[in-house]
């Protein structure tokens, strides 16, 4: 399973990059199956760590997206409105979901190694 080491992770299967970009992991998109709709938050919205900020729908499922850290929504990936399948095709790249302007450190987040252990149930 592809888990890039430069990202931080949540137990809820979101990732956050050093620049505040947030998406869902390869593991998550695989478990969900074909993503067919992404509900995005408004730019400028203030989010708390753990707060639901959007929704990813696959053919058969509806899943909330949880914010990895406190921050302000600086940008959203509007490409996902027309091409939600980018979340499946490139979860760490073109399939990013929002960019946060983070307000605090990422101390409570998981490293790639710890996240891998989570997905393996170690």
């Amino acid at each position, binding site marked *: 399973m592809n888990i890039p080491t430069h990202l931080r992770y949540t137990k809820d299967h979101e990732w956050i990059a050093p620049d505040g970009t947030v998406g869902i992991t390869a593991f998550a998109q695989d*478990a969900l*199956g*074909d993503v067919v709709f992404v*509900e995005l938050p408004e730019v400028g919205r203030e989010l708390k760590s753990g707060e639901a900020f959007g929704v990813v729908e696959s*053919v*058969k499922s509806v*899943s909330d997206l949880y914010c990895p850290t406190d921050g302000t929504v600086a940008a959203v990936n509007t490409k996902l409105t027309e091409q939600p399948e980018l979340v499946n095709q490139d979860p760490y790249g073109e399939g990013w979901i929002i960019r946060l302007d983070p307000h605090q450190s990422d101390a409570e987040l998981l490293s790639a190694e710890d996240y891998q252990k989570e997905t*393996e149930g170690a």
Partner: protein
Amino acid sequence: MLACFQLYCDGQEGIINLEYAGTKASRGVLYHREGDFCVKDTPLTSWHKNHGGKLVEFGGYWMPLDYGSIVEEHLAVRQRAGLFDVSHMGEFLVEGASASPFLDHLVTNPPSRLTVGQALYSPMCLPTGGTVDDLLVYRLEEQKYLLVVNAANIGKDWEWVSQASQHWPMVTLTNVSDRTALLALQGPLAQSLLQPLASIELDAVSYYHFVPQVLVDGIPVLLSRTGYTGEEGFELYLDANAAPTVWQSLIDRGARPVGLGARDTLRLEARLPLYGHELSETISPLEAGLGMFVRLKQPGDFIGRGALERQKSEGLQRKLVGLTLAGGIARAGYPVVDAEGHTVGSVTSGTHSPTLKKAIALALVPPSQSAIGTSLNVEIRGKLVPAEVVATPFYRRETRI
């Protein structure tokens, strides 16, 4: 984000807690915990598990939701050929001198008019006109029929049919669900793929007809030209022990395994009802738009006839319509709101249509809101999303010339 994963599956909504399930990385074992909840395996559950199937509990069985991509499996059935394990469906034999009059009394579309070798679809109603189940009836012999019922209703239906049969001494019932496997081969290439394995000329089997003892790869099956996808295709009933052999032969010839996820999107595009959604004990077949399977013009009483006649003469309170929408996916139970902001109905099934590449839904609404072109809204997570009443089915295959 996966902590509470709501699954909208063929027939039932279940909540699957992925927190523990997600702790296993291999796709094949994501949800499958042996021995849980007395969930049964089909003869092919281990095949699904070993071939990337995402197993879910459905109707009391471990069934494959998909093998990686519902959309790809859906398109494979529309364009080529897909193979479904639907061994979870229930099968009852009804036989005896009174089998025909008994069944004419039990279901709304009289089976006695079938010839031997022919099948029909029928609702089975309560005295209130609500629906106990919808089923297929095969006339095996002059006085012997096979009923095929929904997996989630096997227990309830068995009770219902047994109770009803007590007034009919010349009727014998047998539940053969556990020893019967059911495979569905569907898609434009289904016939050319199956023909080399079959002992009969498949062209000779017309729609809703069957042959009881066809050899497929040397194994006897009951073969019918039926299905639940809106495509051409066949269903094969066979001994559970022989199912893996026939399954593998069809896969080896190029059929793609298809899970319940695509079975649901395929049937929804074709506007085929799913019990628990478009039909239930509080939804009559007339409300679900299945009047052609309720023979009110023919003489003879059947369970629910009086109530259904009243519904028809007094006018239906609600009708099933097709919706398309942009800005979210309407799921079962979501409210339908009219242009003035009043909640007027609810969604019975909704999904993303892989063929049309947009959100489609079926909903029960008042007749005044059912005309094609009517503008409605579906409430999705507190927001009103515009929807339009459209003609159904959403997808109709091109008929063969």
